[in-house]
């Protein structure tokens, strides 16, 4: 309990009006009303909980954490070769993060998650890194450092965008100071949606990147309406 905050998922309402209400209350246009259904784009959701507590009929809630997915552009066939599956070195870059995603990534090292047991290691140098894990929407002042980190990595490199800001820009969007996501700077292979995604969702992403979890979208765990 409390391991995952959960997230809204596609919901069939009893009337189109309810679906419209859900779409209207979303501040980042992550919910699209289609007839009686409301469809969620998890890469945009900023977890404001307004579609859970702010409308009379709340959206359905997924209490799970298997949220990672291959990226639409460069996700195809990006799974690491088998030789990486028990030893993956990860370099993290904070590209304008608010501190939440970074804090959740750090939690992976605590004894409750202990990612070492799964063969995942943080490394301080891009030369030894296989995976570039980026948090934050890419601020203009960090763009250069992010690019240099990626360029210094060996050619088997993959990029994982962690958090809605890294995927879509989140609440910061695109501006003169924000690239609106890692995708506009580097080729992103994997995405872990969430604002922030809990440590288990990030771990799911790492397992998926090394081919130890299927790279297909997993069915959400239905908790029903709460």
């Amino acid at each position, binding site marked *: *309990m*409390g*391991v*995952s*905050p*959960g997230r809204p998922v596609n919901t069939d309402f009893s009337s189109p009006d309810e679906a419209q209400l859900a779409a209207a209350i979303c*501040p980042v246009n992550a919910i699209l009303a289609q007839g009686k259904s409301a469809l969620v784009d998890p890469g945009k959701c*900023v*977890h*404001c*909980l*307004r579609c*859970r*507590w*702010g409308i009379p009929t709340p959206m359905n809630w997924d209490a799970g954490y298997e949220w990672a997915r291959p990226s639409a552009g460069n996700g195809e066939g990006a799974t690491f070769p088998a030789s990486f599956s028990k030893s993956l070195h*990860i*370099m*993290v*870059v*904070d*590209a*304008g993060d*608010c*501190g*939440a995603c*970074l*804090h*959740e990534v*750090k*939690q992976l*090292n*605590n*004894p*409750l998650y202990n990612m070492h047991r799964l063969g995942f290691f*943080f*490394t*301080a*140098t891009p030369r030894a890194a296989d995976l570039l*894990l980026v948090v*934050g*929407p890419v*601020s*203009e*002042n*960090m763009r*250069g*450092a992010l690019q240099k*980190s990626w360029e210094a990595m060996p050619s088997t490199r993959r990029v994982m965008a962690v958090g809605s800001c890294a995927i879509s820009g*989140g*609440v*910061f*969007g*695109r*501006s*003169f*100071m*924000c690239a609106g996501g890692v995708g506009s700077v580097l080729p992103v292979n994997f995405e872990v949606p969430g*604002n*922030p995604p*809990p440590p288990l969702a990030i771990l799911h992403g790492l397992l998926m990147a090394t081919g130890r979890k299927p790279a297909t979208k997993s069915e959400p765990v239905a908790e029903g309406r709460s």
Partner: protein
Amino acid sequence: MGACSSSMEERGRTTLNDVAAAIEGRFGNDISRTPASHGCALTYSLTKPSSLPAVCRSLFWDCGCLLGGIIAEEQPGRWQMHYVFLLLLSGWIDVVLTLPIETTTVPSIVAEVHAADWHEREIEDLFGIRFENHPRLGDFVLHDQIWHEGIDPMRRNFSASPAQLGKQLDLEWQPLLVVGDPGSFAMPVGPVYTGGLGESLHFLLETVGEDVIRAIPRLFYNYRAVEKIAEGRTVPDALLLAERFAATSAFAHSLAFCQAVERIHSVEVSARAALLRVLFCELERLRQHVAAISAICDSTALAVPAAQTSIITEQLLRASGILAGHRYLFGLNVPGGLSRDFKTEECRKLLASADEAERELRVLEKRLRYSSSFLDRLEDVGVVKGANARDLNLVGPIGRASGQHCDLRKACPYSGYERLTFEVPCETEGDGYARLRILFAEAAQSVRLMHQAVDALEPGPVRIPCEGNHPGAALGWAEAPRGATLHWVSIDEKGLVERYHAITPSFNNWLGFFMAAENFAFQDFPIILATWGLSATECDR
């Protein structure tokens, strides 16, 4: 616990009337008192700009006020600059300087009030107003190797939309070196270091060998122009930004923002909402302090306590997730109260988690106090003397570890803190160990406050309507885990945000960091950083 040279109560004996008499007696011809507004207790309008430094000096040094910050606002046809000071136990004092829009130069107060340094540098970089006689303007928020001087993003006519305007990567750019001794060199650290698990910021360690002479931080790598993109947004949309620019203190910042909006609307939240806000504020402080303690243990390579505290942190995050639906307490604060109500038994479960955390912390503190190898690395490391902490206006646990006995929960109470019983610990040594003791003591006080808040809960609404068109501006404030945060919100007649300015504790304290990082051994650097526990993203916004 070392006694502080002057406690809040002692310093709070100066009343608003004393300050008014002193200021009006001395500057009667240059200033005029206007009706107190924006949530301030005393407002002055300055008619003679050249006397600004003297007025500020008088408030900061003679009257013993603290500096809240400087807020610049471009209004149609004029500049308005608010110099905000805090008189302990009495409230905020606002000195307003109104200038025609053509004005390009303002007298700098930095020679009188050193703590104003970064406030003026930020305004110069973002608005293009020059401060006369400021020793160092230029490269600050907008990094000089990317942005040309002359770009003023906070001006009204600057569009926040994506643009390549004036950007040109200057590969030849070099930071300014202070140490010029023969044989000295500068070691750059960051912005990506420790495998990226630290926030993005850059240090220039100036050294002649083993010992580092000074460490100069360069920030704003995470600058996302939150204040600029908030302009023109509705209040609920701007609230998302206030909550998300620094997630480790999201609740305190969103609370300060909401309180500013509530002040504009003249709305007072219900007693129940105020108590629940106290509950979440203290939960956030407890969690953040435990995380800070964990980082200190980690910096000294004390693996077991670092792991133990990281487990407590995770358990508090889970308790937050269970109760509030978000591990970092997003989505709770709304103008007018809270977005939802909580059952008392749910809150009691949270208290059980907090009690368990406190028990574990008490055991841990005792063990750490008897680990001489650990204490050796903290004592006399990164020392900031009380006089320096006063000079540079350090806030929060760092200020309180250096004898700056100030906490907004008592110095300028909000959300009903004046009705609750708690202590504000204070130490005088100003070293790493004093800061660690403050963190432990404050974490215990937070648990005490959480209990009081839940015990005092009475049935009632948690949300009072706070909508409609009420143009105006106001301050909102809160004691965030890292110290005082002050938010200025201005709303136009359409209900859209006109100006938003967040003065954060990390912004305040990074200015003083260099004092703790002078003439130290290189291996102490991570420890000094960890005992300061500052956030780059909270500073950058």
